[in-house]
């Protein structure tokens, strides 16, 4: 499972890349693997807002539907429109072309509550143990 070191994570399997006050959000390699073939992604439009810990969208795979949770609060600057026609990018490149949203990070303090790669890896390990 790919787990880039430079990112922050949520227990709900989103990642956040921070660049100044801009954040890019997607779902983790573990999440896309658990979901299986992604066939639809529903995201908010630019100009909208996301709230830390709240649902901002939905990802549907062939077998299931899963809510997306915002790691931080802020205005939506951009959504990945390529996912409209190529939702499978979420599977193929969860940290790259399969990114979902760019937001303006309002409160940098919210970053403190996000998980390090090591802490997130522990979350996935516990989930896998629970699933067996």
């Amino acid at each position, binding site marked *: 499972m790919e787990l880039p070191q430079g990112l922050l994570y949520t227990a709900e399997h989103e990642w956040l890349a921070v660049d100044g006050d801009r954040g890019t959000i997607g779902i983790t390699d573990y999440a896309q693997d658990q979901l*299986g*073939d992604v*066939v*639809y992604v*529903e995201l908010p439009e630019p100009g909208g807002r996301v709230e830390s810990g709240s649902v901002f969208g*939905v990802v*549907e795979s*062939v*077998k299931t*539907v899963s809510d997306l949770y915002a790691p931080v609060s802020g205005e939506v600057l951009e959504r990945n429109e390529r996912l*409209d026609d190529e939702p499978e990018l979420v599977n193929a490149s969860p940290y790259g072309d399969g990114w979902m949203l760019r937001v303006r990070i309002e409160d940098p303090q919210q970053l403190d509550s996000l998980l390090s790669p090591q802490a997130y890896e522990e979350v996935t390990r516990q989930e896998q143990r629970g699933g067996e």
Partner: protein
Amino acid sequence: MRALALEGLHGEAGARFAPFAGWHMPLQYRGIVAEHTAVRTAVGVFDVSHMGRASVEGPGAAERIRSTASYDVTRLSAGEGHYALYCTEQGGIADDLFVYRLEEERWLIVHNAANAGPDYERLAAAVDGAGVRAREVTGETVMLAVQGPLALDLLAGVLGDAVSGLRPRRVAELAWRGGTVLVARTGYTGEDGAELVTDAGRGAELWEALLAGGAAPCGLGARDTLRLEAALPLHGHDIDVTTSPREARLGWVVTLDDGAAFEGRAALERLAAGPPARLLACIRLESRGVLREGLPVHAREGAGAPPVSRLTSGAHGPTLGAGIGMAYLPPALAEPGTPLAIEIRGRALPARVVARPFYRRPRAG
């Protein structure tokens, strides 16, 4: 939870498991879409040993089976199989099943896993006595479905040329490596192919021979998307005790003209006298999204009104690249072309009734 005889081999093939009808079943191996595509374009193999299997033997078995099944199975020749229903006294569908006449007085009956217990009791109650005996053989056999345009070629290579002469719905028992493999040219994917039954002890060898011959291992995930594209109903979802055969468009497996008594006959005769109040229809989403069982279905113009129905099945159809589902609709709304709206997370998305099935395989030649 019951484990498949071949569970270890499924693990080796990369299966992810999920519980289904009391069984620990492979949900997927490489991925549902890849497996679905393998069956549509090449060949895949499913372990469907969870299906309930019963053998029935003895003089007069045909009439006894007929006394509980909706279809007149007495018209089957040895070596022929047919789809049938078990109905309730109210004319609902207790289960759907496949009946194979292996020899004049020897039969194999295949039930859904979820209903296998009550189905077997029903069958045994109907056939046992006077030299006819039912026997449950689920645990001592393995059942593999080999499906796809290359399935028959693969099976001819593995089991021998006799497979090539087998016509649709026909069944034969072939000698293989010191034992027997039952080969039925049937399936649940909308593709050509066959279903195989053999001794549990020979199952591993057969599975490995099929994989070595190029079959992609496929799980229940792909089985569901394939059968839905083919508009094949799934009991407990599209059909159940509250749905009648005709509204499910299964009137063709109810035989009334032979006069034979069978459970549900009186109710089915009454239902046959008038038009069905609703019909199971194929629905295709016209915007992006995925259809799921239970979603509310609206007439396109009446999207604000209460739903006219709910989806009995729904999925992303990988071959169609669209959300697809089925629902019971009033006959006036069940015509292909009728505009509908499906409510997904509070939004009404445009959808349309389309001709059944969603997918029909290209005929060779």
